[in-house]
């Protein structure tokens, strides 16, 4: 490289170094002028320059960066839009029985055709989807809140273990569907005035909370013997605050993940119960009831089953995808 080009970068050309001799040819070198005495400030060295870390901010950043999360967000938004907007624009009489219009194939008036009692399938399906998702959200949140509460207590107080394990064996060893049916039947006999929706929520909650509780109990056991909990105990922190301040924040990510996976499960449970006739009555508009109706004439009019089944698949797919993407984003190890 040309030597002249380097000359302009030489230190001699910078004003601060004018009196400094680089090559050692000039005699007057003042070494003291090169260095400046800096006082040691103990507190200055403690300053953290990095911006404060925020867990939720980095969750958002990681979540948005994932392509599968993007698909999940878009389909989730579409789904929410569909179940909120479409039922609002239902034309008059489209959800009523009309024998004249029964079993129509899809056309420009009835987009997805009509069912065997003449109701419009497009609006029926989306109205049903709204009901199913609503019920699933309510049930899931109930299950998660109850399950988390009992799970924390179960994991924290080891003495309660035998009681909870027996309870778990009792509930978990009966096939879920059988238990739903049994509870639903018992509730309908005991409280005939109870709405079918409430009955459904109660029986699903009773049958499912212990699974969540056991999951949270296992997670609690993993972290409860960590040293920071020991430190809290030596400080005399009461159990309630250890649970809410030490354990719950650590479990929050797994709880959210668990919730997003429980929701689709609850949707299919509701559909299954309605399908078998122990959930919502078949004249109620829900996905399960629609599937039950569509099944009856499946060979002649397959679209009556395919429409609600397709929407159900789309809903469950969306929630699962959302849950899986969220699981990755909530894991702090994947934040960098």
């Amino acid at each position: 490289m040309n030597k002249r080009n380097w000359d302009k970068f030489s230190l001699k050309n910078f004003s601060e170094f004018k009196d400094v001799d680089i090559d050692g040819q000039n005699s007057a070198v003042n070494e003291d002028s090169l260095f400046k005495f800096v006082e040691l400030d103990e507190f200055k060295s403690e300053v953290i320059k990095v911006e404060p870390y925020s867990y939720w901010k980095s969750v958002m950043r990681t979540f948005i960066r994932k392509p599968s999360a993007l698909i999940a967000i878009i389909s989730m938004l579409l789904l929410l839009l569909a179940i909120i907007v479409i039922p609002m624009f239902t034309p008059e009489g489209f959800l009523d029985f009309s024998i004249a219009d029964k079993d129509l194939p899809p056309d420009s008036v009835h987009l997805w055709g009509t069912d065997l009692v003449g109701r419009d399938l497009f609006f029926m399906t989306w109205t049903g989807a709204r009901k199913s998702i609503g019920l699933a959200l309510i049930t899931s949140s109930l299950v998660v809140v109850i399950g988390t509460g009992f799970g924390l207590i179960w994991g924290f107080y080891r003495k309660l273990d035998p009681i909870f394990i027996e309870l778990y064996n009792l509930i978990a060893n009966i096939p879920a569907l059988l238990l739903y049916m049994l509870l639903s039947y018992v509730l309908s006999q005991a409280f005939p005035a109870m709405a079918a929706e409430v009955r459904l929520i109660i029986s699903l909650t009773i049958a499912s909370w212990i699974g969540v509780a056991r999951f949270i109990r296992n997670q609690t056991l993993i972290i409860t013997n960590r040293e920071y909990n020991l430190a809290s105990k030596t400080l005399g922190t009461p159990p309630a605050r250890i649970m809410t301040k030490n354990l719950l924040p650590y479990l929050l990510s797994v709880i959210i993940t668990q919730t997003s996976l429980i929701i689709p499960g609850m949707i299919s449970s509701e559909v299954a119960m309605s399908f078998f006739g122990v959930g919502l009555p078949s004249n109620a508009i829900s996905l399960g009831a629609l599937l039950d109706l569509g099944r009856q004439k499946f060979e002649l009019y397959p679209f009556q089953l395919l429409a609600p089944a397709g929407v159900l698949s789309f809903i469950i797919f969306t929630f699962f995808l959302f849950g899986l993407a969220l699981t990755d984003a909530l894991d702090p190890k994947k934040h960098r």
Partner: protein
Amino acid sequence: MSNIFDIFRKESKKSYPSTVSTKDSVNGRDILLEVRDVDVFFGAGKHTVKACNSLNFKIYTGETFGLVGESGSGKTTISRAILGINKLTNGAIYFKGEKITGKLTKKESLAVKSKIQMIFQDPAASLNERANVDYIISEGLYNFKMYENTDDRLHKVTDMLHKVSLLPEHLSRYPHEFSGGQRQRIGIARALIIEPELVLADEPISSLDVSIRAQVLNLLKKLQRDNDLTYLFVAHDLSIIKYISDRVAVMNDGYIVELGNANDIYSNPIHPYTKSLLTAIPQPDPRTKNDRKKLVYNRQSINYEECEYLEVSDSRFVLGTPELIKQWTTKQ
């Protein structure tokens, strides 16, 4: 088969008074903590692990009591037994003359907790990652209601932060944003803000970088001077124990093998285990290093169960039999 008859051989459990005198009858010093015949066993039957065997020591008010020994010698077990985390199999522990082991009411155990605090070994594991520094340091204040209002609490917390050379702006930060030394200082602040009288330091510097060990040690010394603290300092590093302790107990295999003033033990070790530990200290001078003779301790040569504590000189105890001690003191 011999194990079956052990239960008949075992002495009936001694009972311990609920209060003892806080003045040492020999030298008249104030006893802050007294450990009497403490056994801590884990497991049962064949798989019993005897972590601590008939430990006896006293910690005087205002001193630093060093506990040194190799990994698995029961140092941490006894310090956790003092906190009530590990249950005693036998014996009793007294704090200011009051028995703090066995059945305690909630109020009593809380009162003990407010006076005995612990500094943990690993600052990364012992701080709640999901809580900010403000909560971590205030935790004890919340538990013992040691503040009048939020301003008072914040004032106390920032004051404490200043004492451990941290800044008030750190309050909203989370533990993982700090360096190891800073984290350990947060741990120290958390333990000291409730103004305990006895601080159990469980290897507080062994997980720290060598360059900041001195910083934390000097901080501990400074805090001891300012707040009249008593330390039980657990470590496996002899040079650190020598630097910080007034009296030292050397532990091996669940037994205290030698106990005495730090200077005495370092200048004139008696028990062969202590001797072998002292020869293992790294020496920075290459000339003396080459002369050093490393002693290897043969654990099998001594049966601790047959030994007892013998006072060889003023307040200097060695675990052994009279013959053994004679052998150790004469053979040089």
